[in-house]
């Protein structure tokens, strides 16, 4: 076995895992608060990429401005979807939320389709250079993805653990009625949670876009994998989303290299079936409510 190729796969796995983990984190936070699977989260990922594409292509913004702009716009779309759709379904059966989420997914996709068409778009890599680490080549964009994702995870962790606002999100996830009874406002927590989930999805998309292609359906496979990740990691679990993201990222990168590139996307789902048959509760089941 060639060692440098092996290290290369580790770096690829970390890159993919970072993107997946960021998307899954937003999904798991929203699930923790609302107990609904937000299928439209993949559309937020796509919306983030297009927003940055628009900022760079049409407004001539630089990459960092586009990244922040995309995070802000996508957070706003996520909050709007909460205000206009999910908050109104709070007292209806969970099935209604799910159908609404699928409707939103199709709606946002159709809007992107109408504005930008179905063609694949390419975002020029802002940092085309490479780094060499121990004889292995690491493109700077990939280093950025890994570093950015780790930075955001640490920031999110500190936010949830150390701030009062973060504690209200965790409290709402652990016991919604208990949280309401101490005076935490569900509406406020939902808005903050949706904003964070939208921003994380957008950042993941904008970091990933320069090494991938942009299209209206780009979020679909990512969101399916993000669901695999949060089911693996335990629905609503933050460490589970991170670990699950890495597991899927590594499985894909190693699977593509050592087994077959064609099987890359099947591996995530095969792993889901395998792990869930051994551990039906996921890797980090949420504390009992």
């Amino acid at each position, binding site marked *: 076995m060639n060692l440098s190729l092996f290290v290369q796969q580790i770096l690829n796995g970390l890159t993919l895992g970072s993107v997946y983990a960021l998307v899954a984190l937003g999904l798991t936070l929203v699930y923790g608060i609302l107990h609904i699977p937000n299928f439209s989260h993949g559309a937020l990922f796509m919306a983030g990429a297009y927003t940055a594409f628009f900022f760079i292509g049409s407004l001539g913004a630089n990459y960092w401005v586009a990244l922040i702009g995309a995070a802000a716009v996508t957070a706003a779309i996520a909050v709007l979807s909460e205000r206009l759709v999910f908050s109104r379904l709070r007292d209806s059966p969970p099935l209604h939320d799910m159908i609404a989420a699928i409707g939103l997914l199709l709606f946002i996709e159709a809007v992107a389709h109408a504005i930008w068409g179905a063609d694949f778009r390419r975002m020029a890599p802002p940092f085309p250079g490479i780094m060499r680490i121990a004889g292995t080549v690491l493109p700077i964009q990939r280093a950025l993805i890994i570093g950015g994702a780790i930075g955001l995870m640490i920031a999110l962790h500190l936010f949830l653990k150390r701030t*009062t606002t973060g*504690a*209200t999100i*965790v*409290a709402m996830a*652990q*016991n919604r*009625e*208990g*949280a*309401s*009874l*101490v*005076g*935490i*406002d569900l509406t406020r927590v939902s808005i903050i949670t949706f904003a964070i989930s939208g921003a994380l999805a957008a950042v993941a998309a904008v970091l990933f876009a320069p090494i991938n292609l942009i299209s209206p359906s780009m979020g679909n496979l990512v969101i399916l994998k993000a669901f695999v990740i949060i089911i693996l990691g335990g629905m609503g679990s933050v460490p589970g989303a991170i670990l699950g993201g890495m597991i899927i990222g590594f499985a894909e990168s190693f699977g593509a290299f050592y087994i077959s590139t064609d099987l890359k996307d099947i591996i995530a789902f095969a792993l889901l079936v395998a792990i869930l048959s051994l551990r039906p509760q996921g890797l980090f089941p949420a*504390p*009992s*409510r």
Partner: protein
Amino acid sequence: MLRCEGATLDYGSYRALSGVTMHVDKGELVVMLGANGAGKSSLFLAISGLRKLKAGSIRLGDHELAGRKPSQIVADGLVHCPEGRKLFPGMSVHKNLMLGAYVHRRDPEGSKAILERVFEMFPILREKQHQNAGSLSGGQQQMVAIGRALMGRPKVLLLDEPSLGLAPLVVKQVLAAVKAINEAGTTVLLAEQNAYAALKIAHRAYVIENGRIVMEGDPDALLGDERIRKAYIGA
């Protein structure tokens, strides 16, 4: 202090409360007796804003509560310590208690002083303050729940079945704490299945059946009432 007039609550086609009229005066400790499903918890949930009334009014002082959000009602000074405790099991005892003071987050000094009082009332919580609330025994969790409610600085405290599922010795301890809280000036409305022990510490009592108040009186009169003894005390 707290006054319900004709409070009516429906769950779909099921009427959980029909025209409940009751009141708790300032400084009183009032017990609400009733079997499972009689409407005690529904009344408490309606008062604290978690369920919306179909008709009637609930007033705190001269302030209408019906239609207000739970978070506003807590800020108004009415705190509900729910049946089943509803703690945050994955958070430390300390964090559970501090979240109880969420509506007073702009006054951390005041909250620290109350935390100190909670620790004096339940010394075991000081010892276990860094453990996850979910890892505590039932009695200790109930203490966290009462402590968390006190951190909200209630003028009126609703306690729903604080002794449910606890060992007899712990029940005694919890009810003694309830009495002490009331004596320190907090108005208390207590729902209890443990009628005898609850009536022993109460100033006044109501009996609720099928969502209606069927009896009101002072504790001695209720303890002497044949039907009450049969239905709620079993002697």
